[in-house]
Each structure stands twice: as C-alpha cells, then as structure tokens.
C-alpha cells in the first residue's frame, strides 16, 4: 500500500538533505579522508600505517621519489592522522595524498560564493591628467598577491600598443592599506626632464593623447584566484604641470558654529592621493587636534573635513605637511625636477605649512 509522505516527514527529509549537502560543500569527504584548506585528516587503520606524504599535482606512483613532498606538520591523534600544510592548500590546485599503500587525489574547488578580486577605485580619478604624472594608486577589493605584481599593469596607447617601460617595476611591491592599495610609479627617469631615459625615450605620456591603464585579469588575490575581468581606466593627457601647489590660492569654506558641518578646501587642482593622506591636521588656538575625518571629492581636487564633535567658535589652523604633492610630484616646497642647491636639506626636517580660518 502506497503511503503519502506527510508534511512533517517531508520537512525532516528536506533538513537531512540540506544538512548533508552543506556537509558535502564544506568538508569534501571520502570514507577515510577529509580535507579543507587548512588540513587533511585520515582515519587511522591498518592501511594508514607507514608513510604519509602530500604532493603538489596529480603524481603517478613511480614519480614519488623524484618529487619533494609538501611541507607541513603531521599529528597523530587517537583515531586519525592530521596533516597541516605550512601554507594553506590552494584553490583549484591538485594534490596527491599517499598514506600507507593508498593513493588519493584531491582538489579544492573555488566556493560558489567566492568574492572575486576587483579594482574598487583608482587615483588620480580625473579623466584629464598632466603629461608628467608621477604615480597611480590602485585600490583593490581584497588583499592582492604581490609576487611580480607590476607585470600585470599595462599602459596602452590609442592604437592599442602597450607602452614599453612605462611603470617602475619594483622587486618589492609597494602595497599598503592591508594589502589592498598598490602604488604604481610612472617611470620617474622618463617623467623627469633631462635624465637619460627621458632624453632617449621621452616622457611616458604625450600631450593630447589618450591612454588606458589596464590591470590584467590574471592579477591574483592572496588565495591565488584571478580577477574575473581586466580593469580598464581611460584617461587623456594634457600639458605638464610644472607649478608647485600654491596653498595661498586654495579656497577655504569655513563650517558653521555648533554644527558638524564640513570644512571645505578647494585646491583648484587634483592632489596626489598617497602623499595627502594623513598629512593634514586641524588644530585650535590651544594647539589641540580636532578629531574627524578627511575625504577627497571632485577628483581629489577638493578636500573636506568632517569633525567628530560640533565646531566651536574661534580661530583654527590647518596644518599641511610640506610633502603633499600634486599629480606631477611637485610638493608644497619644491618642484619635482628642480635642482637642490644647498647641501643641508630643507625638506628632511621640513616646516609645516599653515592655513588659518575662523568660525564665528
């Protein structure tokens, strides 16, 4: 006699199926063998006595002696053996496990919900840039793999050719902000007038030309997973900037008293993202620092400061570190390609610049 499955039974069945599916996803298991990114566990029995090795790749038995096993710690527990690799197992990387006479192969599939690496912002963000532009900052969604990272950055001209020797290829990558912000120097030897590369190859970017900065999708995150797509940022080149940022021309819009309204500084030109960060402070007449947050807007040409507490009536100073630069590396004290004539540096122990404002 056929019996209908009742709703509670259906629910229990559903829960059981979900439970085992979830288990399957998070712990890829064979009867004696469990693995995840951090370790492999093998149930102890007669077959597991003897050797225990893990190899990179799918390795046939006769090649074991010619390949070095993966480094890691082997811990014998009561009923199982646990191998923890020195470096977590990689996604999509095949491995061979040898225990006793048994050989198993495994691979960790990239989880479906994996958040792929992407570029979230780029500085300078303006679409028109000076030909003597010096630096780019690329902000990624996740920490990036820094090995040979500059190989994945390209500058492409309007006809689609990659510019040779456009970025400074550093052995030790400049990555900050928890591994997510990459600094790319546009070859300074070419951007700075009269150096050999500048004389022989000319500046990297030509006036009135358009270019693309491309971050190739093969750039990987720290788990070894590539981006889904190339990141492409187009920009146009205009005249070189050979003028220092002039703080006297900056326009200050003072905030309102007893409010948390924003203090605005219009700089009339985009500033360099990196050198400006953490280089500006607001103090009151007692020299106390006003706590709050600085942000850029208008393609990094306007800065605004939002205080943590409401503004009080009085006089204030905005302190600016002299190493704040424009896009061409000219800082508040000197031009990027000016000659330093004195032997004692004025900018190693620099003087801080000040802009005054009052809140009435």
């Amino acid at each position, binding site marked *: 006699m056929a019996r209908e499955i009742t709703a509670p039974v259906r629910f229990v069945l559903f829960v059981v199926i979900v439970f085992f599916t979830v288990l399957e996803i998070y712990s890829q298991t064979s009867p004696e063998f469990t693995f995840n990114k951090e370790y492999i566990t093998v149930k102890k029995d007669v077959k597991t006595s003897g050797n225990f090795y893990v190899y990179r790749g799918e390795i046939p038995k006769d090649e074991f002696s010619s390949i070095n096993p993966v480094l890691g710690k082997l811990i014998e527990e009561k009923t199982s053996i646990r191998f923890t690799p020195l470096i977590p197992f990689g996604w999509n990387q095949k491995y061979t496990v040898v225990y006793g006479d048994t050989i198993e192969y495994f691979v960790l599939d990239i989880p479906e919900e994996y958040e792929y690496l992407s570029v979230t912002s780029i500085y300078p963000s303006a679409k028109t840039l000076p030909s003597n532009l010096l630096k780019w900052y690329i902000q990624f969604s996740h920490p990036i793999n820094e090995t040979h990272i500059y190989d994945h950055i390209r500058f492409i001209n309007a006809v689609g050719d990659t510019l040779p020797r456009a970025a400074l290829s550093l052995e030790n990558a400049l990555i900050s902000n928890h591994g997510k912000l990459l600094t790319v120097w546009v070859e300074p030897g070419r951007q700075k007038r009269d150096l050999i590369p500048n004389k022989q190859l000319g500046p990297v970017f030509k006036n009135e030309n358009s270019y693309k900065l491309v971050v190739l999708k093969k750039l990987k995150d720290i788990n070894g997973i590539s981006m889904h797509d190339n990141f492409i940022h187009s920009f146009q080149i205009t005249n070189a900037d050979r003028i220092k940022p002039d703080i006297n021309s900056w326009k200050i819009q003072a905030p309102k008293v007893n409010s948390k309204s924003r203090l605005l500084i219009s700089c009339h030109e985009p500033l360099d993202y990196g050198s400006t960060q953490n280089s500006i402070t607001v103090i009151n007449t007692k020299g106390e620092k006003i706590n709050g947050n600085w942000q850029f807007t208008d393609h990094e040409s306007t800065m605004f400061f939002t205080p943590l507490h409401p503004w009080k009536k009085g006089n204030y100073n905005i302190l600016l570190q002299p190493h704040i630069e424009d896009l061409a590396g000219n800082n508040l004290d000197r031009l990027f390609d000016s000659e330093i004539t004195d032997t004692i540096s004025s900018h*190693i122990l620099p003087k801080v610049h000040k802009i005054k404002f009052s809140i009435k």
Partner: protein
Amino acid sequence: MILSFLESSILANSSLKVDFKTGNPGITSINSMTFGPEGILFIGDSKSAQIVAIDLSTHPKVDNSAVKIDFLDKLIADMLGTAIDQIQITDMAVNPENDNIYLSVHHSSGNVVLFRIENNTLKKVSLDNISHSKTSLIDPVDKEAKDKRGRKLRKWAVADIKYTSGKVLLSGLSNKEFASTFRSVDFPFTDKQDYGSLEIYHAAHGQYETHAPIKAFISTKIKGSSHIVAGYTCTPLVIFPMNDIKPGKHNKGRTIAELGSGNSPVDMVEIENGGQRYLLIANNNRPLMKMEFTDLESYNGSLTTPVIKKGAAEGVSYVNLPYVNVQQLDKFGGSGFLIVQRESSGNLTLKKGNSWWLEK
C-alpha cells in the same frame, strides 16, 4: 644541562648578542637580508617596518662545494604545495663563517619562508622561536605623527641591507615620495636611527638633481677609507664617503660609472681573490658585470656630462661576464660567488659562479 649552560654563557659573552631573546620576532616579509659577524642574519622586513637580527650561528658548517639546484622555483612550489607564480624568491644570503646558504621566499598568501640549503635540498628555518633582536624602521617624515591614526598607507620598501662595523645600512623607496632615503642603524640596536638622503648628479644632466632610490649597494674601503658604492636604476654607479653621510643632510655622490640605461642593478658584492678586489654587479637587464677595484680607486673623475650614445657605458671600465638574467648574487666560500640564474632554457638554477673569472 651543562651543555645548555655553556651555550647560554657563550651567548652572554657575545657583546653583539647581548640583547638577543628567544621567541617569535614577527617577521612578515623578508625583502633583503645580509650576514653580519657571528652568524647574525639581518633581515629588512618592510611589511612590519622592522629590521630583525637573527642568530643562525647554531647551524652547522656545511660542505656546499658541489651546490647546484636546478628548477629551483619548481622545487619551492612543490614544497609549499602551490603554483610557481605564487612564489617570489626575494633574496639569497651566504653565511661567510660556515657556507650555509639561505633563500627567502614570499608566498602570495602573505607567508614568508626562510630556507637553508643542505645537500642540494631545502630545509625550512623556523622563524617563530628563534634567538633575535629587532628594531622598528622609524619613518623619517612622519616621525612626529607616528601615533596618529592612519599610518598604514605609508610603505617603505627595503631595497638593500648591509652590515658594517656596528651599523646596519638600508636603502629603500617609499610609496609617497620618490626619494633615496638611506638609513644607518646602530647595532646592537638602540633608539638612534640616522637617515640621510643620498642624491646624485645623473651623468645625463647637469641641471637637474634626481631623487632616484638606491637599488643595491655595498660598504667598502676606497683608498683606505670607508665608502658606500651605490647602484641606481638606469644605471649610475655612485660613491659616497661614509664620513660625509650625516643625518638630515643631502649627500651628493660622485658618479663614477654609467652602466647603461634601461637597466637596474639587482645585487652587488665585493670579492677578494689573489690579492685583487672585484666588484660584481648583477643586473635585471644586463649581464653580470665585473669591475676591478684598482680601476675604481684610480678613477678620480665625476660624470657630469650626458651620455650621448644610446645605452652606452661610461666611466670606470668593467667586463661583462657570461651570466645573464642573474636574479640573486652573493659571495661564496671566501673568493667565489653564488648565483640564482634564469638560464636561456627557462631553468631557474642556483649554482656557483666559475671563480676563473675572478683571476688575474
């Protein structure tokens, strides 16, 4: 018990290791490393902004006279269970007292591994419980701002590190200013840190001063007095008298050679053989170069006129040795040298250089 007592009394007797403690120095990157006396390895760790001195004197003397490891990158990838493009060999150092060879490797996951070579295989050196001493790399520009929020954006990448008579010397590049900061830190470490800026007249120009960072350098004696010989990108070779390098001072060096544009030095070592001193320079875009100290010392000129001929070399003469794509270089066994080289077949090999090239 008696042995350990003896060992600790020996350690205590060493004035250089008097501050050493056993524990985890928290090394998160090894950008550059060099041996000092008594088996002390100095590590430039940009990620943790520190210099760490670790005691490796307990590693036994080894016979590495037949050292040769082919497919070094594959070997490391196999041992770390990862793809070759996920690893970067950041430096190689040889302990002159016992011929132990060390390689530092970065993995994309952020892990850093130090290997020691034994019988042409790699042995991992544990860095989490080791006798060490360390000091922070204080930021010269942000010195006052060190406790304020948001310092994470600044990054100082160590390019080279050397030890000479009680001082650890470092060169590097920041992601903010393009400046050749050069640091001198007393060892045993104290709170004192000197930083100067070593600047040069590039032979290509007379008018513009450059802030190019030093990629590789050595400290040495020239005509009996202490000097720094520094190699810059693109590729001037410049000497600075040690006595002239003073804190907060711009030091303009004497450019003694132009080694050709489109090139960057990778490593530099001084080797003495048969009473002659040689400077070996590994390059990223030129073969391994050999310069004789007698030529270097007798050159009294300073290159201040542009190099007209494209890619031409000027100044102190040198010889190109038949080793191209040398990625790592160090002195080995008294009068020889050791290299990591990408051969034309694609094989990344660690091997001894033929000392025949360093004979008169």
